[in-house]
């Protein structure tokens, strides 16, 4: 058989160049990363690690149930932190949401500022905020609540503003035509349209915040993380196992309940 298959059509040369540059760039990036990353392999694959693993893993999987009630106390504190933080954020995010919604706030300057504040806020990890508060006002759950509240405003504000931007503006127009004032329009025209979604997002955020609150104690901002640090420092791995088990169970249950409620609301 002797058939000439037509050659692949040449893509335009700019595209080829771009692809070559990207491929080389990626290759260099990877080689450099893996060549310069400093992992002490010798120590990691040492006998000590093996002994460690041998000692630790079985204990992790046989949690210390005598420790359970203490863990539960701290897990409850974690839930309180998450709830107080999410609640505050759910309220605080409302003004920010309206500020960032372009159909309500038609001033482009304030609008952009609102969006920027929310974006910046979301980039700031809650654990970093918590650390700053711990230093500023001392350790304790209050620092955790503040961190959760402030960080959550970023995401909730953005989601709220998207909800507000998608409302039916005809209703607002009709009320304006009826001679309603701004506050009346707000309470009768806008709020009823956005409340279910706002609530659903707030619950979703609570779900995330429960998970986030479990780590706060690691840096002294309250909750179950406090115990985790102590137990792992003391190498009480059966206690660590108990803590992990409680986190897994609580987080799973709350995720389940939360998504069930959200399904009913919207």
């Amino acid at each position, binding site marked *: 058989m002797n058939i000439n298959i037509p050659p692949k059509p040449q893509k335009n040369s700019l595209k080829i160049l771009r692809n070559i540059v990207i491929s080389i760039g990626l290759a260099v*990036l*990877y080689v450099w*990363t*893996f060549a*310069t*990353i*400093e*992992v*002490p392999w010798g*120590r*990691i694959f040492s006998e000590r*690690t093996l002994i*460690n*693993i041998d000692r*630790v893993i079985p204990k*992790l999987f046989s949690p210390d149930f005598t420790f359970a009630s203490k863990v539960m106390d701290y897990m*409850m*504190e974690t*839930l*309180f*932190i998450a*709830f*107080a933080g999410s*609640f505050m954020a759910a309220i605080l995010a409302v003004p920010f949401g309206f500020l960032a919604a372009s159909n309500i706030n038609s001033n482009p300057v304030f609008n952009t500022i609102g969006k920027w504040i929310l974006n*910046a806020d979301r*980039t*700031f*990890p809650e*654990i*970093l905020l918590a*650390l*700053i*508060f711990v*230093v*500023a*006002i001392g350790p*304790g*759950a*209050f620092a955790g*609540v503040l961190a959760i509240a402030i960080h959550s405003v970023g995401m909730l504000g953005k989601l709220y503003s998207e909800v507000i931007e998608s409302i039916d503006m005809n209703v607002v127009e009709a009320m304006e035509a009826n001679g309603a004032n701004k506050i009346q329009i707000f309470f009768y025209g806008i709020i009823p349209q956005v409340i279910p979604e706002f609530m659903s997002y707030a619950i979703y955020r609570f779900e995330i915040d429960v*998970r*986030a609150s*479990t*780590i706060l104690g*690691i*840096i002294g901002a*309250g909750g179950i*993380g406090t115990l*985790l*640090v102590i137990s*792992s420092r003391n*190498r009480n*791995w059966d206690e*660590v196992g108990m803590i*992990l088990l409680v*986190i*897994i169970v609580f*987080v*799973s249950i709350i*995720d389940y309940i939360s998504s069930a409620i959200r399904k009913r609301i919207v």
Partner: protein
Amino acid sequence: MSKPLNPTGRVPTSLVSGRTKLKMNVIMVIVLAFYIFSSYMTNASVLRFDQAFFTNVWNMVIQLFPPNWAYASIVWEKLLETLKMALVATTIAGILCIPFSLLAANNIVQNKFLYNFIKMFLNIMRTIPELILAVVFVGLFGIGIFPGILALIIFSLGILAKLISETVESIDMNPLEAIRASGGNTIQVIWYAVVPQVLPQFVSFTLYVFEINVRASVVLGFVGAGGIGLILRQQLNFLSYQNVSTIIVITFVVVVVIDYISNKLRRELV
């Protein structure tokens, strides 16, 4: 002359039915009560926002300025380490997630037990935050970037495998049948009919997980798992606030730039 609108004399007293109103009020009271209880239990009531609170926070904030730019070179070095951790972890998670996302797709795996088992395994993996994993791994392997990378891998594997298995579940099954009908084996079916359909989303989700890993790796150092968090916590404990603000500003800018680039790439992909 207008006659009375409502001859029977019964005037509605409310705009919504009594039951709805009652339900709403009950829910509101419960939520509010739980909030008050929570803030009491966490010592975080609104009463705490007093003069002293604002003075303390303000005192700290003013000490953050101006950033100490002489410290920037150290920041860069540690930040690079952080990014390398995120890159390595994302890459490994990206590779490892392939078998998991296939096994967690109900259109690929017919065995209900295996499918549910993998799904449950991934769900559990996602419930544990990476910082908690990092604490455990630091206990196992000692301080350093290795436990940090391991924590990132496990956490992002859970997210990635979930997202990609959902993509796999939504693909067009017809080409799979065609490849099978022309005599392809399982691997060929996956490579020729599944991979082309999920590749763009795979790249997009991997980039997304890279963003998440960058953010997460910034704080891993708080527990001794490598990266910039280590010096951040250290400088805070030394009360060198101007170094702290240098770290925060540089990290913030880098994270925003990475997010921006990644978002742009992802939008082009899908």
